[in-house]
């Protein structure tokens, strides 16, 4: 049975910008892989055509049918994980065995407070000074 696993240290699912994301990958395959690639990425989902950005990747050149390797990424400062009416942005780690398309993916949150930013919806009718404050000089 083919199995790929990504384990993030301490089961952490939320990170702050520029923090360290580390963990272990494990694989158990029926045929020896040519290699494995772990990719740090973000992608969008929602109404718009999906954008995918590959931030960083680590290649593991093991040809063993089973094994494990540790990994460590320093996360960038942005973009934040968010969800709005039309767009959501997700951060993920994806492990792919080469050749073939066997893969697994783990998502996590990247934001200043470790929570996904939820964008509110506001009506088209323009409210008077709905948020914040201004000061006229």
């Amino acid at each position: 049975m083919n199995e790929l696993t990504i384990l993030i240290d301490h089961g952490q699912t939320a990170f702050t910008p520029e923090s360290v994301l580390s963990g272990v990958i494990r694989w158990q395959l029926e045929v020896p892989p040519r290699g494995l690639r772990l990719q740090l990425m973000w992608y969008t989902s929602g109404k718009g055509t999906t954008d995918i950005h590959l931030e960083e990747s680590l290649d593991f050149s093991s040809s063993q049918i089973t094994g494990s390797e540790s990994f460590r990424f320093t996360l960038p400062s942005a973009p934040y994980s968010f969800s709005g009416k039309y767009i959501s942005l997700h951060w993920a780690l994806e492990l792919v065995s080469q050749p073939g398309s066997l893969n697994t993916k783990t998502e996590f949150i990247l934001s200043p407070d470790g929570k996904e930013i939820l964008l509110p919806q506001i009506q088209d009718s323009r409210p008077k000074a709905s948020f914040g404050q201004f000061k006229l000089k």
Partner: protein
Amino acid sequence: MAAFRLIATPGQPTSLAGKIFLSLFLSIFLLFGLVFIFLFGRDLWQTFESFSWPSQPCVITRSEVLNAPSKDRGEPYVFHIEYRYEAGGQSRVSNRYRSKDEKSSNWSEMDALARKFPVGARTTCFVNPANPDEAILRHKSLWIGLFLIVPLVFVWVGAGGIWFTWRVPPAQSRPLSEKASRTAGGRFTALFCGVFLLVGLGGTVALGWNFIDLVQSGSWIKTPCTVESSRVLTHDSSDGDTYSVDILYRYSFANQTHHSSRYSFMGGSSSGYKGKAAVVKKYPPGSNTFCYVDPHNPSKAVLHRGWTWEMLIILVPLLFTAIGAGGIYFALKPKSAGKALPEDPRNRFAAAADSSSSFSAAPSSNGPLVLKPKASAFAKMCGMLLVALFWNGIISIFLYEAAESWQTGSPDWFLTIFMIPFVVIGLGMIFGVFYFMLCIGNPVAKIALNPSAVPLGGKLRLGWGFEGKTHRIRNLRITLEAREEATYRRGTRSYTDKSTFYRQDLIDLSDPRQIAQGLAEAEIPSDLMHSLASGNNKIVWILTLHGSIPRWPDVSEEFELTVLPAERSA
């Protein structure tokens, strides 16, 4: 670091009924394409086969142009040829040039063939070895085979769509990172636009020859000529008859007698009988007039040299060419690798904003920045004027046809009703030209930011001012807004949906002294999203400025600004 784009995979119909309905719909495309390929391909194959027929010496025994209006209403001039050849030990006669009847609405075309193959001339013909009675003088062109692309596209859409509807998705989904590099959607769009480009280029080249003649005709010689026959030709068309002027005239040039039936440089036929009849009436049979003869090729002549309204028809293939070329460019244009997320977030967002917004100067992270409107009112008016001229220029041709049909007492209802929405759009564009013309006199707004880019949770300081007659503005509002912009493709068109998630009124003034210029501050909420300029998905922060002017177009501008990720505390 590269940025990638994934073309969203269209969802498959979940129900069986949905799949069947979609398959039936797509099978119409498939069937239509296959039938056309069969009919067209059969003819093309016969032409292709004729290239293997052995050549044989032959002698022309008859060669003339027949004027036979009763035989074919639209193409009265027939090239009639007969030639003798030996095959299978017998002398045989054929009257096929390429097909049974080589005919045209243009005398000169047929006359050129008759001159090329005079009676008594010895040439070679091609004899069908399976049927020696069948012979042709020249092969049909195989270039016509290019038109097979059209039914092939139908087959591709139909068969591909059915396959896609019923295919079983692979058990193991593809890795996201692999999908990131796929550009199938772009290639499909490029191919689709390629058909437009080919059709447009073909039409432009076909019609363009007339313009070359038009330009060169300045040096053509004015020559006396005699009208032999004149009439209005009627052509069958799918939505009713169309008409063309047919005047056959004779002239002498360099001691040789020539004939021509070319009235003006742009041939073809159109609806509207009355105008053509009026032209024909000016040239009764037997009358003497003048024509213009090409001194380098005296068989080329024209009665009316100069611009005619029909020449605007070239705008149609030019439009196809522009759509095709533009579509291919945008479909295959590589995405900017650094635009989605370059290395350093501070520079990255500023760079994204610089390339896609109205920033007039390169923003630095902490210096001041003056924002200007994306386009001046004059530029907007010029753009609208060009679009309006182009659009209305094209529809005027058809509008003229429709008007002419009404004048002649046989109104073309289909064309008239069909044209209504196009005319409404054209009138809207003309209104737009005048609207932007009025805007030219409006004060021009400017907004300065300090710093040029502000982080989430930071303080935005801005100053505004105007160039021009600021006193005309009775009320001024400046609002800070943030919105999502999601771009997606439906068919061959691209749509962008927008949703505002933040709005803050910064100023709302009615005092003219305060309107002229001023300063304001605003706090950017820390719990929202910073600017993001990914390929198809954006988070945009903007300042909207609205100045109300009584009985005049308002001043209304948007200025994009950069909101950075929150600053990290030390």
